[in-house]
């Protein structure tokens, strides 16, 4: 399934949370664009506004200043073709695996039969066939992660946003899920934005790596990572060097 990815443009975006007496600036003057089909990773110290940036791209949050465009249109509410995988995965314990996978389609009022068919296909793609009637509590952490991914896939999104989706997964499983994410992106060609606090993950899954500064967060470096996409890349010296490069930039930004 080949998808034309979405184009994203942030220009001079700032976000202030007015929390009573003291206003908190989460992001300040964030500008970047993502070309259709590109996969970028956002990394930075905690509280640097990378999740806030992702929420704006998803349409859950509007900027206080500046504009956020997806396919040249301002994002004022969640788009039909955007899929967001939140940090806690957003699965509902009272829905079966199939219902969870089909939920994006159900909400979009896709006919029940078609929604189920597409959800089944997506579940197969992530290796969860046979678990359609189980409940999330019966799945392992890695399977739940795959289920969240299946929900996004079933929606046939041109933009996939992920907020540290693998942070709760142990290291070995994490690598196999990263491979799954990479495969899907290579196959489908959607635009992808991944927020992560893992340097290795950013280097493995980001064609470009945007480094955020501490609060108020802004983009301090936009690092090209052209070798990304090759599954053997993880074991190479160049990969390790790239990680060191990001680490140095992060250390510089924290000063």
């Amino acid at each position, binding site marked *: 399934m080949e998808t034309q990815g979405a184009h994203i443009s942030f220009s001079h975006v700032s976000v202030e949370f007015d929390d009573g007496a003291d206003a908190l600036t989460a992001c300040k003057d964030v500008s970047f664009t993502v070309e259709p089909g590109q996969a970028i990773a956002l990394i930075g110290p905690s509280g640097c506004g990378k999740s806030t940036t992702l929420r704006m791209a998803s349409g859950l949050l509007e900027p206080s200043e500046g504009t956020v465009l997806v396919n040249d249109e301002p994002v004022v*509410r*969640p788009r039909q073709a955007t899929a967001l995988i*939140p940090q806690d995965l957003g699965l*509902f314990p009272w829905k079966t695996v199939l219902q969870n996978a089909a939920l*994006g389609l159900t*909400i979009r009022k896709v006919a029940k039969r078609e929604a189920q068919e597409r959800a089944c296909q997506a579940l197969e793609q992530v290796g969860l066939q046979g678990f359609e009637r189980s409940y999330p509590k019966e799945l392992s952490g890695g399977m739940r992660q795959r289920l969240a991914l299946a929900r996004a896939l079933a929606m046939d999104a041109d933009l996939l946003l992920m907020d540290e989706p693998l942070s709760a997964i142990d290291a070995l499983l994490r690598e196999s899920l990263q491979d799954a994410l990479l495969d899907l992106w290579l196959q489908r060609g959607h635009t992808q934005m991944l927020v992560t606090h893992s340097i290795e993950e950013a280097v493995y899954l980001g064609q470009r790596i945007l480094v955020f500064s501490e609060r108020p967060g802004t983009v301090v470096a936009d690092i090209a990572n052209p070798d990304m996409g090759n599954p053997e890349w993880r074991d190479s010296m160049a990969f390790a060097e790239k990680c060191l490069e990001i680490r140095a930039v992060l250390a510089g930004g924290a000063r």
Partner: protein
Amino acid sequence: MKPPLLRKIGGYVFAVVFIFAGWWITAVLVNSPALPTPADAVEVLVANADQLVPYFFTSAYRVIVSLVIGTVLAVPIAHVCARSRTLDTLFAPVLYLLYPIPKVVLLPILLVLFGLADAPKIVLISLTVFFQVLVAVRDAVRAIPESAVVAIRSLGGSRFDEYRHVAVPATMPAVFTSLRIGVGTAIAVLFIAEAMAGSTGLGYYIMQSWSMVNYPRMFAGIIAMALLGVVLYALFDIVERRLTRWR
């Protein structure tokens, strides 16, 4: 499949034997006409079945209708209150003050307003159930994590979707738990209401037997009322388990 079911049935058989044995021993020890043995009570129960069965259904009808009315009124109000900060600030203290008041005290007034038939009993039990369900569901709505609502919104869900996919299923267990607990209270209130006014129902039967100083007949009524409670409790338990299999 079979062994767990058998074990369960065995458990209930044991429980019935245990309870009746306890009753029997107590009756023998107390040795008073006010506490007949289970054998005497069951004998009267069987003999008076033609009168007890209609009374059982009259009482069951009153309790079930009240449980339905109380729940149907309480659930939407609980959702609206818990989701709106303004309404909650306004009504939480009202609820806080009204909830602990025993609603039974209103019975005399309800009798004046609604007469002696089903209406005052149903109003009183509904009121009791209403508050129990309201408090439980309101707390359950407030316990829904914000992230669940955000997840629905990020999928492009409307306010209606938030209710349909999050608020209603998330609070379903609270509804049934409060109903299961509410059955006990509802039947207690039913007994008082039927004992005080009217000439039908198990409560009336028990009090009538008491005034006739016919203790075995009274205990036959008590067994019937206990049975009503058990049946309703089991019913809610089964429905709850079916609807909340995900837990």
